[in-house]
């Protein structure tokens, strides 16, 4: 484990930024939120627990160009516009978001590999930061995530006046060695102490005791047919805010845009909550908001785990709890369906 006084954080950021782009949570005055922004001199790390948008944007951005076409007469030219991603470092990722990358990996890196995602994933180094002041909306522990011991290429803690860093992967090792001049070797006493302290707070989290046991593949049809979906979804506006702030939601749309000089085929986030998500010329298998609402939670809690060794596609970051316009969320769904089961 390595350490660096918090007062020297700026030097660390400067050293990293001298070789590649460094992103970190920064307080945004206009929104009052923390957002990931590129570090440059004068930018300071946010104290907020987490960013309003998740960290998935780094690997799965809101929109990205897939391929260009040039059309002339009857001919089509396919132009592969992909370029090798720049190296970058994301500093200050929380444990929940760090877990979300594993969940996204299982989708995008499964065969056939999504090269756009992979490209960025390979060029990004994730430096996490342990949580010290969880919020009432946090329930990552329910999914077996330890917010005091976040994953990532490098795990980080800010305890007292010091930052502690510990590499978990080769990429992480390389990262630490690239800034080794600034770092000193250290024991993990301070980290352990902090972990113990935070764990006491974690015990008090109001959503820490959500029970996931009913959500298993063998209950698929039973959960699907639950009577509760109707009243849970009744007020749902069918907007996409939960899916767009969610670090694990990965549905996307592919669209063509005619620039006047050619066609740009791009992909953008899509939401299973949207009424036209599955609409076809001759019908729609998910006609009402009940089905769409059900799909989102069934996917997170049943379908995804059924295909991925029981891993839930939710990390308990609490963003959707904070952002849903009508305050309906996965915690309420877990409770409601759990009661029924």
């Amino acid at each position, binding site marked *: 484990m390595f350490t660096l006084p918090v007062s020297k954080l700026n030097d660390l950021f400067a050293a990293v930024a001298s070789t590649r782009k460094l992103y970190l949570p920064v307080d945004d005055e206009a929104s009052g939120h923390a957002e990931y922004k590129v570090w440059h001199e004068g930018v300071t790390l946010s104290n907020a627990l987490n960013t309003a948008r998740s960290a998935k944007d780094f690997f799965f951005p809101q929109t990205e160009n897939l391929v260009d076409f040039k*059309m*002339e*007469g009857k001919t089509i030219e396919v132009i592969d516009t992909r370029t090798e991603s720049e190296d970058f470092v994301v500093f200050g990722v929380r444990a929940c978001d760090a877990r979300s990358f594993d969940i996204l990996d299982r989708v995008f890196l499964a065969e056939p590999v999504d090269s756009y995602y992979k490209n960025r994933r390979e060029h990004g180094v994730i430096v996490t930061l342990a949580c010290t002041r969880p919020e009432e909306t946090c329930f990552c522990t329910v999914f077996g995530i330890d917010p005091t011991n976040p994953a990532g290429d490098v795990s980080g803690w800010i305890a007292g006046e010091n930052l502690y860093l510990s590499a978990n992967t080769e990429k992480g090792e390389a990262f630490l060695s690239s800034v080794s001049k600034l770092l000193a070797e250290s024991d993990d006493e301070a980290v352990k102490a902090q972990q113990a302290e935070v764990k006491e707070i974690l015990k008090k989290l109001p959503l820490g005791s959500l029970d996931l046991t009913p959500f298993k593949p063998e209950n698929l049809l039973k959960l699907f047919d639950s009577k509760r979906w109707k009243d849970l979804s009744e007020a749902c506006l069918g907007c996409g805010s939960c899916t767009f702030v969610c670090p694990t939601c990965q549905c996307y749309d592919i669209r063509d845009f005619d620039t*006047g*000089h050619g066609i740009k085929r791009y992909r953008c986030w899509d939401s299973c909550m949207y009424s036209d998500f599955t609409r076809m010329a001759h*019908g729609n298998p998910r*006609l*009402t908001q009940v089905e769409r609402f059900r799909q989102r939670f069934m996917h997170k809690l049943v379908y995804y785990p059924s295909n991925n060794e029981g891993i839930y596609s939710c990390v308990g970051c609490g963003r959707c709890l904070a952002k849903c316009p009508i305050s309906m969320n996965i915690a309420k769904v877990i409770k409601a369906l759990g009661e029924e089961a």
Partner: protein
Amino acid sequence: MQKIGVFVCHCGTNIAATVDVKAVAEALKGEPGVVFSTDYQYMCSEAGQNLIKNSIKEYGLTGVVVCSCSPRMHEQTFRKAAQSAGINPYMVEIANIREQCSWIHKDIWSATEKAIILGKAAVAKVQLNAPLTAGESPVVKRALVIGGGIAGIQTALDIAEAGFEVDIVEKQPTIGGKMTQIDKTFPTLDCAACILTPKMVDCAQNEKIKIYSYSEVADVKGFVGNFTVKIKKKARYVDEDKCTGCGICTEKCPVKNVPNEFNMGMDNRRAIYIPFAQAVPKVATIDANYCNMLKNGKCGVCSKFCTVGAIDYKQQDTIVEEKYGAIVVATGFNPIKLDDFDEFAYSQSKDVITSLEFERLTNAAGPTSGTLLRPSDGKHPHTIVFVQCVGSRDTSGCGKTYCSKICCMYTAKHAMLTREKYPDTDVYVFYIDVRTPGKNFDEFYRRAVEEYGVHYIKGMVGKVVPRSDGTLMVQASDLLSNEQLHINADLVVLAAAIEPDKSARSLATMLTASMDTNDFFTEAHPKLRPVESPTAGIFLSGVCQGPKDIPETVSQASAAAAKVIGLLAKDKLTCNPCVAQANELMCNGCSSCEKVCPYGAITYSDKEFRMPDRTTAIRRVASVNEAVCQGCGACTVACPSGAMDLKGFSNSQIMAEVDAICK
């Protein structure tokens, strides 16, 4: 994907001198959908048109772009050519490379570049054109005239003359309107009744004309060529068919104290009455507000005396429904109420009267049998003051801002006639301006001043004060001499402003015809379509459209009739196919489009929709009456969802043009 042919016209050298037409034809070859592109000396010539026709056949073209002069010039020509070659005329688009390109640019390079872009925009538009078919709607060969004054009478007579049936709806018991109350007409001074009553009789006798007197329009549905109108025939308690108009009932009726509106309330009539001797139809009417029998069931005198048994106390209002192809509005006017003009003491003194009252006082059929006598004491007035512009050209808020147009002339007439009949009277006319812009009008006015010695004073009357001796003290200012005047008058005559009849507003709503802020009906175009309402099939006759004197009214009435005849002469109306169209699946039923439609072409109905989940839902959706819509497109922008689109100028077509131009 269309198969488009592009035809670039040289227009001799008009285009070819500044636009490299061959380069344009060549450049457009590469556009999506273009399968043939060529240039030619004169596209509009027969040879040029044949080139288009032959190419349509040879290449199986589905769309045509002609790069030539303005579409205002030859769009019709090329559309017809395309049609004769078997494709829909609306699959033709014109790129205007003459008026909007070759004629305004000198530099060949930039003119050619622009011509190519305009051509591309036209190609992009044609790509999205759809064949359009002009709809047809049948025409009911019958017209309705609302209002039976001189305007309505003239219109009805002219229409009937052309052989079409026409109905007049008049809310009074007789037709004739305001003109019946007038004594003589300017500038010829012929008797109003002498020229009007024969026309009234003509109406009654004309087989093609049907008069609904004492009736009102209750409801109007439909559109040009095909209106359905409900007419409410008010109960007159007299069987029109039986009544011979003998008048015995009006003499025997015991209720004698009913103010006679024909004489402006200056004498009385009975509860059963015939408005005046020449009334058409000459049928008695019972005034239910006064009739003892109708009020408390005690009397029945008229019924006893009626030899033909025409009296029917049980008569009810009835509704008649008729179909019409055209409707003429001829609702006329009324003098404004003068209650707000305290300074003239109109409500305080009987001897302050309006000009229309003055007309009655000088009319042989009037309350004084034509002798000019003061209403208060029946004495002959020696000093008469006429005040013009009472409530006209008034920006103070109590009157009307517009000029009532007729007052200058009738006041001159009154002044002149007074001086002629009673040379011993002093006549003063107070005016702001004297406006006499008609044939022989100014001569008429000058005669009043020069031959008859009427005292015309430029200035306004400040106050009229009734005095204890029965005279009226008129305080006024002479603006020319800048003096304050005090005139001791026996009679003051106020030239009250005229305003549209109160019934016009509700009628306009029924007709979806637009009105201005003064409640005058708006014409479709002030210069080009002055007798038509913007709402197709609605025509305007007389003062309902704006203040007019009799000659003007009659000419407008005939003009409206001519328009109506033109419409009724058609068996079918061809509609403009470039009209709005509502996509019912996207329509919210919010009524925004309906609110901005100047023609009332949009209606709403609740329709049942089959939902994807096989349930049905009832939704309110808009639909456009293609016969009424004129295709302005106001509704398409008012519609937030884009459910309303305009055929021939659709959102996607215009955006395709935008894209092509900005590329």
